[in-house]
């Protein structure tokens, strides 16, 4: 496989001020993308992931049930997990069945498959500050091995402050619909993620050090700007990971 094609993209940033600072279009959580029965119980992580994923599928003009999905997140369902850990230390702590099964890293992936009635494989991936490049690499490998199209969602809700002081904020999600090879109507051509020394834009270094999933900002900015061939840094550290892209210009 020579490249992947980006067919659709969506971004969700619930914090208004942060959203206004982003160099590409992003939206608040769209509760219409969450099935009514799940709305009350679903986490910020899941609501953002669904919002971004639905927007990307609409942009790509693909039904969400059409392809496999990869959900990538540094901390997964951290607020639900935090609530359970808090209950576990109390003598009379209560663990609810739904709280427990909604604490797994593949909660968003599982509910997405249920909500879309999608029986294709769904994965949940985590790689700390390398979560974005490893998610893109997993997407590359799936498309190179099996062809077709897939949905990649990268997201993290805010983390309780005491877990990792100074990190885990602001919440953000983005979703990409990707196809194997060079496909007509693509927004961007994306190469295989590679180890490298591309410099992460200084303007976003503080943000990504605070919230690792924001490493997607330069890539999403490049999609929006639509420029020609360039190399995009996928990690704030060097040596790190990078990817060659070619926009529609």
């Amino acid at each position, binding site marked *: 496989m020579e490249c992947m094609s980006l067919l659709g993209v969506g971004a969700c940033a619930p914090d208004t001020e942060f959203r206004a600072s982003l160099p590409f279009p992003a939206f608040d959580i769209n509760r219409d993308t969450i099935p009514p029965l799940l709305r009350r119980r679903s986490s910020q992580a899941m609501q953002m992931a669904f919002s971004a994923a639905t927007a990307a599928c609409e942009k790509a003009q693909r039904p969400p049930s059409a392809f496999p999905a990869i959900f990538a997140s540094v901390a997964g369902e951290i607020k639900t997990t935090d609530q359970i850990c808090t209950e576990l230390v109390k003598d009379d702590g209560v663990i609810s069945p739904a709280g427990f099964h909604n604490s*797994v890293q593949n909660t968003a992936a599982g509910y997405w498959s249920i909500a879309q009635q999608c029986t294709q494989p769904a994965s949940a991936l985590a*790689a700390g500050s*390398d979560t974005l490049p490893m998610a893109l690499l997993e997407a590359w490998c799936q498309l190179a091995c099996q062809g077709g199209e897939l949905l990649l969602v990268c997201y993290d809700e805010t983390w309780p402050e005491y*877990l990792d002081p100074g990190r885990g904020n602001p919440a953000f999600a983005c979703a990409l619909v990707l196809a194997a090879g060079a496909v007509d109507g693509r927004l961007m051509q994306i190469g295989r993620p590679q180890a490298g020394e591309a410099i992460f834009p200084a303007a976003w270094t503080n943000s990504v050090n605070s919230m690792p999933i924001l490493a997607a900002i330069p890539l999403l900015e490049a999609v929006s700007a639509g420029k020609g061939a360039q190399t995009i840094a996928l990690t704030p550290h060097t040596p790190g990971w990078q990817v060659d892209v070619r926009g529609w210009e």
Partner: protein
Amino acid sequence: MTLSPIISPVAVTAYQCVSAGGDDVEALYASLIANQTCLKPLTLFAIPFDTLVGEVTSPLPAIRSSLQAYDCRNARLALKALDQGGFRAHVERAVAKHGAARVGLILGTSTSGIYDSENAYARLHQDGLMPDDFYFTKVQTAQATAEFLRLELGLQGPCYAISTACSSSAKALAAAQRLLATDCCDAVLVAGVDSLCRLTLRGFNSLQLIAAEACRPMDTERQGINIGEGAALLLLEKPRAENADRPRLLAVGESSDAHHMSAPHPDGVGAATAMAEALRLAGRDASEVDYINLHATASTLNDLSEARAVGSLFPNPPPCSGVKGLFGHTLGAAGAVETVVSLLALERGFLPGTCGLRVPDPECRFPVVAAPDLQVSPRLILSNAFGFGGNNASVLLEAA
């Protein structure tokens, strides 16, 4: 009928495992042959109900001081497995041969280092502060023990965690095979690691799935599951002349039930799809499968779903068994741990038994192996792992 495979097979050049079934693969093999349960009362922490667990009670090694921030029970289980039976030397050989940047690492885990996080929360509850030596992204987040192993071994290739509950490390094998098939790596270390913790014990108890006694997979009188812990390590490399004598991972089939977060599809549709997909990717026919290592947790819904899946896919089903009555359900590690069990069956020539089985459920329209069968040498094995979210994976393995 052998069709051409869609994905290239990979060689399993080394494997190791630490669990309640033993500290290494030799001890695990002895446990599989003895077929006597290793499940015992929990000693690691207190829980407000009765059960038996598959706890690793032998001492765990200390984490080196330079990697102290990663210290947690999960990392220690992984380190223990790494230092069994010369496994570390196999990884070092792969690094010397291929270069550190060409050796990747995929971890499958469901709860990572959360046992240690729970201890930190106890301090938070008491003192209002997390302990100074608690590092969230080096202990609790899913990739933590992957990063530890990568630094411990000096690997520089791709490194990430798959965390899809109880299918995690079966899917890690799938991701590793793809890294090799796409030439992103020459070797990939797959680690399936999960430790006992309060969250899963009490979580599964809230779902009323925990058995008070040793579990009885596929038995008419099954009463639920026992949780275990373990670390299984597998080194995958591209097939070459020098590893032609090693067993092969042919393919991993994956699917989603799209049914319910914590209950499997009643007819096992997703489970059957995962098994069929493994066969399709490998270009093999169902009639070629010699043995199925069942997920068989001994929860009623899971067992019946899987029994129907096997019945629907195999006109003449091969012998099947489930090993969780021996050392428990190792959750995110189960896919890798039971792949190791299946590799032992391939390499040493036997069919594992189903510890705890007395009367097979009549829904099992296939031979359920109760006692280990030493007269059969399987050559093609499917090993199943199914998780929350209806997340299914089936690993297809072949003898050298």
